[in-house]
């Protein structure tokens, strides 16, 4: 509560000091001191930015048939094509698509599905966790029992089943268009349990604290108490789980797409590209498979390392 007369100045000062606060914080200090964290952050940033700006960076648009030349097919990386003389940084696939460009666009799909699925799982998990922790009783029993049951099944299997069921329910003519969204829902639904369990546990602890009691006494609604008072205090473990979940979601998406039950060939993700590349493993066109696979691994590994670091940094007890 800063009721200072010169209100015009206040926002500017607050903003500046917030950056200062961040730079002076323990988190930033441990971040600077951890080479793994710095490197993986830089790698993640580069990958995310190149995915976001794919249309600007990619030399060609691989999904525009007009820009493709079948004569360019199977060009090895950094070598001029025998017929056209064109050179491609990472080579081309069977249809003459530039592998570098398909990877950039594929990473877009992978990251979009991964981030959207984790956000979906996070919102669902936080909501159900808060409700079951705060309300208790039958609601809690039903939600947490469901979570227990779901936890006994591997999440990739749950995602596959949900994908299959949802695919069955969508009309045939929309299946390819809807595939990405179905994928997001399937991976998201397979992953909410972690969030719900952690949030419920933290809520049970916070619920007994005095500030919640105070909020209840001054007549705030349960809805407001959950969202405005308890939620901010249970967010830090959620952040850790979200980062690790992102790595898992990216791999889950790649696995499903690789199996042919994910992103359609019209919107290939990294997994779809690896599926396509596997077909050329025996004929010697290794670059069609290798580069998407390496990109996927780099992406998943750096997000994972970042998550590990975040867990250690936010939970000094675990160190």
């Amino acid at each position: 509560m800063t009721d200072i007369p010169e209100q015009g100045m206040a926002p500017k000062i607050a903003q500046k000091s917030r950056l200062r606060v961040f730079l002076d914080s323990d988190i930033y200090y441990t971040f600077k001191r951890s080479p793994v964290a710095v490197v993986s952050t830089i790698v993640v940033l580069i990958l995310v930015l190149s995915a976001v700006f794919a249309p600007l960076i990619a030399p060609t648009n691989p999904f525009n048939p007009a820009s493709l030349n079948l004569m360019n097919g199977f060009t090895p990386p950094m070598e001029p094509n025998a017929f056209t003389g064109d050179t491609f940084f990472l080579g081309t696939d069977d249809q003459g698509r530039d592998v570098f460009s398909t990877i950039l666009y594929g990473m877009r799909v992978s990251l979009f599905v991964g981030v959207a699925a984790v956000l979906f799982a996070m919102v669902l998990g936080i909501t159900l966790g808060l409700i079951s922790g705060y309300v208790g009783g039958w609601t809690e029993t039903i939600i947490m029992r469901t979570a227990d049951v779901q936890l006994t099944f591997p999440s990739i299997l749950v995602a596959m089943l949900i994908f299959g069921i949802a695919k069955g329910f969508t009309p045939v003519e929309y299946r390819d268009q809807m595939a990405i969204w179905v994928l997001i829902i399937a991976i998201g639904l397979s992953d909410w349990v972690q969030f719900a369990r952690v949030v419920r546990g933290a809520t049970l602890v916070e619920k007994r604290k005095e500030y919640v009691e105070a909020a209840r006494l001054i007549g705030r609604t349960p809805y407001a108490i959950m969202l405005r008072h308890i939620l901010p205090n249970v967010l830090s473990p959620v952040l850790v789980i979200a980062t690790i979940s992102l790595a898992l979601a990216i791999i889950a998406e790649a696995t499903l797409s690789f199996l042919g039950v994910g992103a359609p060939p019209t919107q290939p993700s990294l997994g779809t590209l690896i599926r396509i590349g596997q077909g050329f493993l025996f004929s010697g066109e290794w670059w069609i498979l290798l580069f998407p696979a390496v990109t996927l691994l780099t992406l998943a590994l750096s997000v994972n390392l970042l998550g590990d670091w975040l867990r250690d940094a936010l939970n000094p007890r675990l160190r």
Partner: protein
Amino acid sequence: MLAYIIRRMGQSALVLLIVGLVAFSMFRFVGDPIDNMLGQERTAEDIERLREQLGLDQPFAVQYFRFLEGAVQGNFGVSYRQGRPVSEILLERAPATLELAAVSGILAIVFGIALGVFTAIRRNGFTANFIMSASLIGVSLPTFLIGILLIYIFSVELGWLPSFGRGETVDIGGWSTGFLTESGLKALILPAITLGLYQMTLIMRLVRSEMLEVLRQDYIRFARARGLKDRAINFRHALKNTMVPVITVIGLQLGAIIAFAIITETVFQWPGVGLLFINAIQFVDIPVMAAYLMLISVMFVGINLIVDILYFFIDPRLRVDRAGGH
């Protein structure tokens, strides 16, 4: 105690009923079953007759009950894609998956425990550290990439092992086994390693951390003071006491192996149940999907129930808070 077991069984039955409801809804509401079964040439009487035959004119609850009745008897209907009874297809495919799962399970258990004990005893040794770091990479590599990598090394580059299929199989009383032919055994190696690797690292890391925990205990120090041989301490005293959590995890991982077989079977085109399921999703073959869903749920729920009940017998400490509390 009996009350606890009965309650757990009740819960399991409830879960299976709900899964059955999901499977049944897929049957009933995805597309039109009549459309799927009758071809282009059909009359209104045909449709009416089939509707009565399938019981589609009955109330929902009656239909659901009939579906469950069929499922319990192993009758899951006819595959839309292959036009044969689903149970027949499943029985035909089951040996491939079970053999693959058994071999990779054994690989995972044997090597997992051996490496776990080794890395725990030689905690600071170079080899142990190397194995631990390698296992980290193993955990973060997606299964399908491990499979592709193995195919690349052993099939494409070295040409030692086949990259797909089961090789020759021998039929023994309806069970087609790949164990008895050379090509069958060769074909089994790569898929089994791919499938077992993740479980192996999991078991190894668990055994290692449990061993380290146990080796710190007083009774181990006492055994050392008594002058017992290292081997006796490590294997007779320490390893035995790490087994309770390890057995639990192994039990739970059995189900996971069958589930992850879906991925391995697709990479290696292994003609098992998992590949069948993936193809069923691709072609929206609802009866096969529903049957697989039911089967795998029965398996998972069953394994969990058994592990929970075993827990109860193995570890007396759990009896008090599990049965009494809540």
